[in-house]
């Protein structure tokens, strides 16, 4: 299967490595022979009809800053959307970082993929959060597959679990922790008694938060994931503007101490109720499955018949997210029929 990989950061490189490591097993179990016919990063691209070598790509990126530096197949200066449109790949993996405020370029790349008949696996949350119904429509119109498992929960199958539960039962409500950075901060504030600022500093030091952590801290990252969950799985068309969002910026330590006295903890909860979509700090019983430590994520579903179901796992990470991407690639491979 010919694959074009867009984005060669932490996730993109993890995908290239993973495809290589699992090569024989993918063939044995799925009849799938993935071939990276193109890779695009922020400074350039590389293309080869015979498939690019993962090690060479990673070396070029790490040593020279771009895959364009790879011998023979690299080039720069081309517009990614045009590379996508002109490529003969069957599937495009969109693994560029999310920039919620300007989803435009990523959206153009997805449109280019769809209109040239390419299946898409996307982990960039930007276009998904603002234009999900449009992307759904475009993929159906062009009769191609569109998956985004890794957009929510990293490698942990949050969306898949919700999808499974819906098939036999009815989801009454969802409460979830979808952002590891803020969970880490709140956990530190609780366990170590730190102030918000100190906890944030520690998160940045450990690499759990960006230098500018506002997307996480202000609840925007959680909200975008909630929108993807609602649209993609729960059949609730909505966009970012439909979610009422409050983050944890400046959350007073007092609130955490008060909560502890009543056997509660404070968590940044993403909630889908019958009439509302919201993200806000909420008090949660300390013995609830939602009380997850460090930078973990947790999906909590309340089912009509099945009761409470929860899933706990890491919510991010290059290699972890790459496994979610691979799941989607395999699913697409099976749904289009191995004859291709």
């Amino acid at each position, binding site marked *: 299967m010919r694959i074009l990989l867009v984005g060669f950061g932490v996730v993109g490189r993890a995908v290239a490595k993973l495809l290589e490591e699992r090569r024989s097993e993918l063939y044995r179990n799925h009849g799938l022979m993935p071939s990276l016919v193109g890779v695009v990063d922020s400074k350039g691209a590389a293309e080869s009809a015979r498939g690019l070598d993962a090690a060479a790509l990673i070396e070029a990126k790490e040593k020279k800053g771009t895959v364009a530096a790879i011998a023979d197949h690299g080039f720069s200066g081309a517009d990614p959307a045009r590379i996508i449109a002109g490529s003969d790949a069957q599937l495009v993996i969109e693994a560029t970082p999310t920039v919620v405020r300007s989803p435009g370029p990523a959206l153009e790349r997805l*449109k280019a993929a*769809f*209109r040239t008949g390419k299946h898409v696996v996307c982990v960039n949350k930007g276009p998904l959060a*603002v*234009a999900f*119904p*449009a992307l*759904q*429509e*475009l993929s159906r*119109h*062009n009769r191609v597959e569109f998956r985004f498992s890794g957009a929510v929960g990293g490698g942990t199958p949050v969306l898949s679990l919700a999808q499974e539960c819906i098939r036999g039962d009815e989801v009454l409500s969802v409460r979830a922790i979808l952002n590891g950075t803020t969970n880490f901060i709140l956990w530190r504030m609780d366990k170590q008694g730190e102030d918000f600022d100190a906890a944030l500093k520690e998160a940045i030091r450990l690499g759990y938060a960006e230098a500018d952590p506002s997307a996480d801290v202000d609840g925007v990252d959680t909200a975008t994931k909630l929108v993807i969950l609602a649209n993609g799985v729960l059949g609730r068309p909505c966009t970012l503007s439909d979610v009422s969002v409050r983050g944890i910026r400046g959350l007073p330590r007092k609130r955490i101490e008060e909560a502890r006295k009543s056997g509660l903890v404070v968590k940044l909860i993403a909630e889908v109720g019958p009439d509302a979509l919201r993200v806000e700090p909420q008090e949660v019983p300390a013995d609830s499955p939602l009380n997850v430590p460090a930078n973990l994520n947790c999906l909590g579903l309340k089912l009509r018949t099945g009761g409470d179901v929860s899933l706990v796992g890491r919510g991010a990470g290059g290699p972890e997210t790459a496994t979610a991407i691979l799941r989607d690639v395999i699913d697409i491979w099976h749904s289009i029929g191995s004859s291709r």
Partner: protein
Amino acid sequence: MKLVMKFGGTSVADAERIRRCAQLVKERLKTDRVVTVVSALDGITEDLLAVAEAAAAANDPVLDAHLAQIRKRHQKAGAELGEPELLRPLQEQLDRLALGISAVGELTPRSRDAVLSFGERMSSLLFRKALELEGVKSKALTGQEAGLVTDETYGEAEPLMELSLYQIAEKLKPALEAGEAPVVAGFIAATQHGVVTTIGRGGSDFTATILGAAIKADEIWIWSDVDGLMSADPKIVPGARLLPRISFAEAVEMGQFGAKSMHPRALEPAAERKIPVRMKNTFKPEGEGTLIAQEGDGAGAVARAILLVKDCGLITVTGAAMIGRPGTAARILQTLAERNINIRMISQSVSEAGLSLAVAGKQLQRARGALESALLRTGVARHVQVDEEVAIVAVVGSNMRGMPGVAARVFAAVAKKNVNVIAIAQGSSEISISFIVKREAGAEAVRALHENLLAGVSE
């Protein structure tokens, strides 16, 4: 308020009228934000169609005549707006396109759409110029530039609605917030590959409601040369009244029966989002027009309007073999569908020995031929009878829903004038009753019903 204002062909037929419409926009801009949608100048779309066909047939005299007509009208309009060469580039493009079609000797649906698109592209430039003369800053956008994207069914392109709504909002919202008054060419759009398409039935009205939905407009105003919707055709019923307010459902029903309402396809985006649509007259702008909203003004009359569809033919298929044989109706409908025959009305009695269908007059003979060959040969039916001189009378009104005795009143009123009712159909929406009478009795039936069901209601 956020408004979408659409101006129809007669309202923008020449420079003077365009200026008048531009003034209407300017007036509104004092208090509201406005997106304008324009149709082609009245008659131009027909000229363009003739251009397309004459080019394909290499009929040079006819081709040149129509191109000249288009050129002349637009040049005159441009000149009167102070810029005679405004449309020269587009005109030249059109000339070249016609040449190309002539050379190939073939008109494809795709190239037809390319030709048809010039009407609205030209009128939107004229309108933008007129706004400029009024001191209003604006940009002229094609449907594509506004973000409207469709599938590839040239001539009747279906919008990719979610994508279009997203793109249009992205494009127009910032413009509105910056105080601009964009002018968008109606009727035209493009595929995801950027190839021009026309959106078919509903036309510029459809463009207007899609834009309205995308920007979450407060109201959509459809300007034309009529005051609004009437309770009956004034040519048949001199006492026909303007309807101040009707529901979306009633508007759709009335449109089905030939009222100069909007096409249901165009009403849908507004109805779904409950955005009221106001029909107004550019030649009498101070009039209230007709407001189409969630609810009509319920008060009073049993019915809202009486309509007449004159040009119909009735086909009745009969035969004892049809009784109790499942699938006969399906066969009949399938046969007609295969020949693209539009069925206006269906009526079947419980005895199942006959099925009556009303079709458009000009499709009658084709329908008859299709049914005869499909059904008589195989003995499924015994007779296919045709009545060429019939009309459909329709009574529309949401007040009729759940009101017992309406049908009785309708047919009593008609019987009193000795009009024979040939077949009857009542939609399950309960907001219309339609029946078939002899063509020459149509007008009389309409008058009788108007008097009986609508009289005595205060303005």
